[in-house]
């Protein structure tokens, strides 16, 4: 089953009178349960493609389909509704809310989705254990290491059981052991829960975890290959 699909998607950014074509007509389908890397040099359109898949942005042309629904023309609130519960995000910077504890950060999407207190509690303990931070729920982000923060972010991305998790350079700000730990956590959760991961990276140590590698160059898909 296709979780996400883009059809001949273009995205043009206009700054002043200068137009930059970030995507020039990309078509790609992501199947459920994939663990896919988007690779390519800086400026090749990886982040733009992730943002379109994540309903954070709208394409200039073409269609973006998530779970069979065309999301290309949805307005801001409709896209927010689409993201909530369907898509999880992991960012390059450790995107936690600094005033909230690890527990409360993971709780945020559950609150937005209207889960009861009991449901939230059960789900959060399960997730904290899953990312190996069972005892750090009460810690604020500034009390956690970069790797720990990124694992909290992974737990948060998984919280409302989305069908697709998008990660933009998830290990770029981590040292090798922490990066490795984050990638192993993602791989394990992909296998255990079947949730689809698409991540952008140009780190060869990260690429080796992928089972499908899509290479972008100058806003176009240059190569798309499965890895054993």
């Amino acid at each position, binding site marked *: 089953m296709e979780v996400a699909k883009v059809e001949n998607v273009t995205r043009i950014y206009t700054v002043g009178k200068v137009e930059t074509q970030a995507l020039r007509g990309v078509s790609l389908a992501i199947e459920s349960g994939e663990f896919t890397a988007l690779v390519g040099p800086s400026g090749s359109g990886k982040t733009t493609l992730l*943002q379109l898949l*994540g309903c*954070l*942005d709208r394409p200039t042309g073409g269609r973006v389909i998530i779970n069979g629904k065309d999301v290309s023309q949805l307005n*801001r*609130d409709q896209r*927010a*509704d*689409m*993201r*909530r*519960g369907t898509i999880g*995000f992991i*960012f390059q*910077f450790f*995107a*936690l*809310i*600094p*005033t*909230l504890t690890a527990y*409360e950060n993971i*709780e*945020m*999407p559950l*609150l*937005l*989705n209207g889960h009861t207190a009991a449901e939230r509690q059960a789900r959060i303990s399960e997730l904290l254990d899953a990312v190996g931070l069972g005892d750090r729920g009460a810690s604020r982000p500034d009390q956690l290491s970069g790797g720990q923060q990124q694992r909290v972010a992974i737990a*948060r991305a998984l919280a409302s059981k989305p069908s697709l998790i998008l990660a933009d350079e998830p290990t770029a700000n981590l040292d090798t052991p922490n990066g490795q730990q984050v990638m192993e956590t993602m791989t394990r959760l992909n296998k255990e829960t079947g949730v689809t991961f698409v991540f952008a990276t140009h780190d060869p140590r990260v690429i080796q975890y992928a089972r499908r590698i899509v290479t972008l160059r100058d806003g176009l898909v240059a190569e798309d290959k499965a890895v054993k």
Partner: protein
Amino acid sequence: MIQMLKLAFRNLGRNRRRTFFSALAMGLALALLLFMAAFIQGEVGSAVEASIQLQSGHLQVRTASYDEAKTSLKWEDLIESPEQVAGQIASIGPVAAATPRLYASGFLTTRNESAGVRVVGIDPTSDASAPFRMGVLDGAFLAPDDREGVLIGAPLANRLDLSAGDSVSLSVNTSDGDVAEQAFTIRGIYSTKTSSFDSVTVFLPLAKAQVLTGAQDRASTIFVLLKDTAQTEAVVASLQAPGFQVLTWRDLNKLLIQTEELASSYMAYFYLIVLAIAATVIVNTQIMSVYERTREIGILSALGMRGRRLLALFLTESGFLALAGILLGLVVGGAFVAYFTRYGVPIDVSQFGVTGMLFSDRIYTELTAKDAIQLTVMTLIVTLLAGVYPAVLAARMEPVAALRAEK
């Protein structure tokens, strides 16, 4: 909902000093408004009350031709048999006191100096003379049959360096247009704590004033005090008679009342300006907060938070700020008002040279519940409105742009 409140509260706690100073700005604005409102209320109350008690009464009955500005002593401008007229007025139910008074312009001269004064002949036994009787600081009050005594105010006594028992010469204009002069003894020195009145008003017993000015058995006015100010109009209606004019405290304090009306209308602008300044602080704080947290807004948005909820989050933060500010304002403003309600604000009335307007030397602030509630609600509304623009700014951010932000 509770989580939202918690998040908003913690966001304010991130930069405690900034939050405190923003709330303080709002608080001080409210405190200032409360104090100003209480001050003006106290001033209006005391000025009107002082004028009624000392100068205008609730009502005055005069002949139709009497012109106050000329302090006329011509017989045709004066009331004949004033004791009898006063007696009739005093018999009306709501009247507390009715007493004849005779006004003349005069000159008080000592060996070295002299001063222009307003000479008032009063019935020393009338209840209406109580403020002067109670206000005697030195010497004694006048007796009705005193032929040589005058009562002068403390500021005048200070200026001319006089004390009780000293001799002075008093010249007054008379009914036939001449000037009469006679030596008097300072019988007593009084103070009504209203310097603008005390420094120019000299009292004689009515009988002596009538003899000195040649008015004989006549008076300038019947000075009437009522038991209740609210009954003024009713009493005026029952006092109409041909050849007489009945003036109320409103007519007699026109300038004062107009000044107060003017004051309350420009105070409304003053309040708005003060609140606008304080609101600017809130807007500034919240805009800073929005820009500092741009990426965070992007994250919340990525998690699926709708614009409306982001709006609510930032509005809740300014709501908390407003509550903290109002609390501070009520405490600080309340303390100030309470202090000055008890001890008064000393003011230098010698600066107010407006004829006919009396201001007490101390203004006791008076905060009405209506003013307190109105100003508090106004401050709350202004703060909440000030929070709208930054909140809209946050809610309208495009998630992609917000996530790209530096921090």
